[in-house]
């Protein structure tokens, strides 16, 4: 077995530099790599490009990096929960590339799986297809989309082991699996680092080969964006 465990978030982030491109897992605030984000804020890294479905909220998640103006460019599908984001975007301080959600996931997966490009129907006839090749297959139009390139992928799992195997819980899985192995270095933080052999090999969501470094995260807040409940009858 090839051991991927590192001591802490500091060791996990060794090599990150200003100007790099990062992938960050999560949907809204669900399943985001909280420890990696905090550390990126703490070390004051600058001019980064973030590939992430959302941009956090004003005071949590990627919003923390936006607040400190550490982000040069965001590549996302939906950014509607963040006022500071909208301000920076409309003022031109922040570059934004909006991408359909399924295309965003698949562009990560293409990088992970060695596909340079694929044809998808999403965005045909819209701004998203501008400047891109379009093509007909079986009477339907498709847009050619290319794989992302990134330096680091930061993902968050529920459980993991030293071999880098990951298991997710609920909808906190989302973009995390497709980002594993889609960047030069994939860093996984987990709520619980379990002994090797404890995870059933049939139930592993991401095999360790896609993960370069893994560490046990700390102090997860797991903030809820929309707390919706029903009353007991």
């Amino acid at each position, binding site marked *: 077995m090839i051991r991927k465990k590192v001591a802490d978030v500091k060791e996990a982030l060794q090599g990150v530099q200003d100007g790099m491109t990062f992938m960050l897992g999560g949907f809204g605030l669900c399943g985001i790599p909280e420890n990696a984000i905090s550390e990126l804020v703490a070390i004051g890294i600058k001019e980064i490009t973030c590939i992430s479905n959302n941009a956090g909220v004003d005071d949590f998640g990627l919003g923390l990096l936006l607040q400190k103006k550490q982000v040069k460019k965001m590549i996302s599908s939906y950014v509607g929960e963040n006022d500071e984001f909208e301000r920076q975007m409309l003022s031109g301080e922040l570059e934004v590339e909006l991408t*359909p959600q*399924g295309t965003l996931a698949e562009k990560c997966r293409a990088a992970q799986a060695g596909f340079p490009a694929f044809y998808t129907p999403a965005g045909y006839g819209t701004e998203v297809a501008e400047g891109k090749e379009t093509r007909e297959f079986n009477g339907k139009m498709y847009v050619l989309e290319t794989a992302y390139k990134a330096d680091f992928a930061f993902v968050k799992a529920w459980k993991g082991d030293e071999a880098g195997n990951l298991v997710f819980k609920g909808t*906190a*899985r989302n973009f995390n699996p*497709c980002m594993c192995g889609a960047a030069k270095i994939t860093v996984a933080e987990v709520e619980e680092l379990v002994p090797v052999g404890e995870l059933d090999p049939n139930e592993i969501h991401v095999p360790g080969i896609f993960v370069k470094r893994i560490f046990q995260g700390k102090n997860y807040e797991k903030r809820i*964006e929309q707390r919706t409940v*029903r009353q007991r009858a």
Partner: protein
Amino acid sequence: MLDKNGIAKRIAQEVNDGYFVNLGIGIPTLVANYVREDIEVEFQSENGVLGMGPFPFEGEEDADIINAGKQTITALPGASFFDSVTSFAMIRGQHVDLTILGAMEVSENGDIANWKIPGKMVKGMGGAMDLVASAENIIVAMMHTNRAGDSKLLKKCSLPLTGVGCVKKIVTNLAVIAVTPEGFQLLERAPGVSVEDIQKATDGTLLVKGDIPEMEL
């Protein structure tokens, strides 16, 4: 005239036995409350759950179990969780039978705009572009006119498009309308709404063939 719940109630009639359904944010989310209980339906949320259930009881919210609107939800027996790639395989691969979503504008050829107002508001398309480019069966749930009173059913959309020629049906506070090769075709009137009211609120070509029944809710 219908309120948001009325629109949801009418759309719920379009949900058939055995349908996998994706519900957008806003009015579409309400549709789940009105689906007949004697049919088998499963709700998919594109952030990674199939077999979505109602909101959790107070105190049972789980930050790891949300829908695409970032609301805490529950999973019903038979549900599954999966990643975003698998979720959009369901959508792009046309395994989802019905997509219900909101819109800012719909044109008479079925174009839809719902993600951007240039220079003013840019929230992003989320999964909407994948959904409208893939789904065979798309119903738009929206108010017939915007806050300024302008029609949202147009000859041609003025806002950046989400998808082209994809909308099949529209349910508004005033009417049920089909998108046909000839334009919008009026199918039903909301209770107490006249054909003339609908005509006035519709900017695009509105075809009125024969008697237009009032909705049964």
